[in-house]
């Protein structure tokens, strides 16, 4: 089956109007030498069959009963009302709002998205939107290079390893070198980024707050380190933490990048998510991606349009700030709906409850003697715990449907026997009790 409405009579009518005998004639422009040979694809399925097939695949995944896995993707409540908003087909089945007369819904909601991200980050301008937190980070670093006209990027080892890999790949394009600024990974150490001075040819310092291990970084000091070298500070942040943590705009960040997934977007095995980016107004002309602005129409009514398009590929082509075109608009709408639904008080409750449960978890693990904090200092809602024989126990618990966080040695060999455990407002006391007793049982 297809979703084509055409009956054979319709097809005959069209062929007739076109003046060809058969549909094959419409493909006569494909040179014979390169015409497709037959393919081997499965036959069509009716709706009930295709649903059975997808249910089969979904059933081959096992959603853990208890999970402390975060590492950049967090299981938060997605209020039902958020699903209702992004499920509306007027949003879902429209495209890029080039035509403002018939796209005010999309345009205004993007404008609100930008405003919300500015509020959260304390920055002056936010784009809408990037593929994910990793590419937003990479594009922010490239932007810093354009702004400073430098071509080295320093990145803290406390930034999500996936982001660092993407940054490497993006930088390899224009031949920008990426240097890693270490963090103190020693057992009992600070778990935060080194404050050593940077070389003065560095375009930016990329650092994460909280960092990959959940640790609170001294962002103000890192800003000074960056600025002393004439570099920009790119702050990679976790959006729910900004209910409590100082906004990057206040501690001197020049650019902000973030993964928007925690704001009402399901884990969905890695995407679609939404990358957030914010900057100072002075840098706006070097920003990659879409921007919507408020304006007035001929009769003075307020309206919204795509603005500053002269940065974009469809106008500037090879001189564009980025090649990004299709982005993650519907996911930006999810974040907009989420932030509107939870409000300042709700976001604070999310952050506080997530933090409380992280501390509850640490206390419970330490009490039971199944793990101790690896670092000093403070943390947000994810925490690195030293757990003897972590790899084996992590695997054993997975068999029982319990995911004991992220195994740190996957990316950092010096982090053996360390689990990075995330909590959110959905983490129950019971989850913590089950994890602890499962760890006890595998001692």
């Amino acid at each position: 089956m297809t979703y084509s409405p055409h009956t054979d009579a319709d097809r005959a009518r069209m062929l007739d109007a076109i003046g060809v005998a058969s549909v094959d004639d419409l493909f006569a422009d494909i040179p014979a030498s390169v015409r497709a040979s037959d393919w081997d694809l499965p036959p069509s399925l009716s709706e009930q069959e295709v649903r059975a097939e997808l249910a089969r695949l979904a059933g081959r995944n096992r959603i853990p009963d208890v999970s402390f896995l975060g590492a950049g993707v967090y299981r938060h409540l997605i209020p039902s009302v958020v699903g209702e908003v992004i499920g509306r087909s007027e949003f879902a089945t429209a495209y890029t709002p080039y035509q403002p007369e018939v796209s005010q819904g999309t345009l205004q909601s993007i404008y609100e998205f930008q405003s919300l991200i500015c509020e959260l980050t304390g920055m002056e301008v936010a784009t809408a939107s990037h593929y994910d937190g990793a590419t937003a980070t990479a594009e922010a670093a490239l932007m810093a290079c354009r702004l400073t006209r430098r071509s080295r990027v320093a990145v803290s080892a406390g930034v999500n390893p996936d982001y660092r890999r993407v940054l490497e790949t993006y930088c390899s394009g224009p031949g920008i070198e990426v240097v890693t600024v270490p963090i103190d990974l020693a057992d009992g150490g600070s778990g935060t980024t080194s404050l050593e001075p940077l070389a003065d040819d560095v375009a930016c310092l990329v650092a994460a707050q909280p960092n990959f291990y959940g640790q609170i970084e001294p962002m103000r000091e890192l800003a000074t380190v960056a600025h002393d070298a004439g570099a920009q500070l790119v702050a990679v942040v976790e959006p729910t933490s900004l209910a409590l943590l100082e906004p990057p705009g206040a501690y001197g960040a020049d650019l902000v990048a973030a993964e928007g997934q925690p704001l009402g977007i399901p884990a969905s095995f890695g995407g679609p998510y939404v990358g957030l980016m914010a900057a100072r107004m002075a840098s706006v002309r070097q920003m990659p991606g879409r921007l919507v602005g408020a304006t007035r129409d001929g009769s003075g009514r307020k309206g919204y349009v795509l603005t500053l398009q002269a940065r974009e590929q469809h106008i500037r082509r090879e001189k564009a700030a980025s090649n990004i075109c299709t982005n993650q608009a519907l996911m930006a709408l999810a974040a907009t709906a989420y932030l509107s639904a939870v409000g300042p008080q709700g976001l604070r409750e999310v952050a506080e409850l997530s933090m409380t449960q992280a501390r509850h978890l640490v206390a419970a693990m330490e009490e039971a003697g199944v793990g101790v904090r690896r670092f000093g200092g403070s943390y947000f809602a994810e925490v690195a715990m030293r757990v003897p024989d972590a790899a084996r126990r992590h695997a054993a618990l997975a068999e029982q449907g319990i995911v004991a966080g992220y195994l740190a040695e996957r990316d950092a060999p010096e982090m053996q026997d360390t689990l990075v455990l995330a909590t959110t407002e959905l983490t129950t006391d019971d989850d913590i009790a089950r994890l602890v007793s499962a760890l006890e049982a595998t001692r």
Partner: protein
Amino acid sequence: MSVAEAPASDTSGRGSAFSGATGGEELSIVEPLIFERSRAQRRAVRFPQPSDRARQRAAGQPTLPASALRQQAPRLPEVSELEMLRHFNRLAHLNQAIDLNFYPLGSCTMKYNPKVNEWSARLPGLAESHPLDPEGLAQGSLELMWLLAEQLKEISGMAAVSLQPAAGAHGELTGMLMTRAYHRSRGEGDSRTKVLVPDSAHGTNPATATMVGYQTVTIRSNERGGIDLEALRSALGPDVAALMITNPSTLGIFEDQIDQVVAAVHDAGAIAYMDGANLNAILGRFRPGEAGFDVMHFNLHKTFSTPHGGGGPGAGPVGVSDKLEPFLPSPTVVLVEGGATDVLRNARDGRSTPGARWTLDDDRPDSIGKVRSCYGNFGMFVRAYTYIRSNGAEGLRTISEDAVLAANYLRVRRHDVYDLPYDRLSKHEVVFSGRRQKRQHGVTTLDIAKAILDHGIHPPTMYFPLIVEEALMVEPTETESL
């Protein structure tokens, strides 16, 4: 509403957002900003309080350092759930969308996005699956990705596929990074610095070349709308890394010298890149891999019909020939236990293969690396897989047949009204020119678009491709009825 370019400085509602509600005097359908509906202390969604036990245990643990705390809560809107919902519902009513009316935005393949695809994407077993879950808990996700990649290989004739890129332009970036890695592996990394791009190309092509550090050389089109072979040949040389060609092109035309084009590129030692955004017209008719292309991207959201979401998400998988395979982004999904033929046959019949097991192979030393966190826009893979299985081998062919029929039908039916700069067989779309209307009646393409708007129909793409004066680019797709 007719709108001017907005003042650059107002891209955030912060300035005026909290200055109070708009006055009630003036009646209009315009919806205030969500901030303007805000009132202190109003709430929608609430969260539980921590239990006493949690609070007690947490008490002994470090709090956040005072220096790291924010001084003022973010001024997010404070609205009730009903106010919030009405706001977005009313905004929704200001949009045009495929689900409401004809949306022939050229180059965008605005066809019906089947609702069963959404059903699939919302299955909790898929939607709630964490990308870093131990592989033993995620075999369903891995199998789905593997099956989809196999299907895209079969559809395109390419040797290998990576699903990682998040959109078409991202696929281009990935493809061109692989191109560079390939030339580097042959010691030609520094000598090949140019990328050839036809003048009809989409803006993402040259922009991509720049992002990869290449210099763009524009190749003019010939009078038939195809690439000028002479111009191409003379531009090709040892300094050329690749040709990026869109086929069918943004003129809705199949490059009927494509065999010679690919040969010329290969002769020069360059990479032949195909922008597959317009694959909707050629399913089952032309496979880039068979024609010798080295790399291509798919616009999964277009050809395989995932909702465009007001500007995304999409997905831009890349297909490569054997020669580029080592450079694909890492990780890739590989079947490590069980036979591919068995798995494909069983999946065809809706059955799992006992003992089959997949893993994410991240040990790819020549890979360009990661272009995105995790593995790509998985939710789009679910929809595309659903779509491909629904349509099947025959249905996919019919899609292209009907899409091409519709475009040609429009071409002949509107032929008298508008100029047709390239009066040839159309593929996915037809590009008219409003130059006659402009010259004879002073009516611009923009005016025409506004008139179309009055019929409740979304206007075609305008003023693109750049090589057509007063262009009107109409892509009816296969799902619009007569």
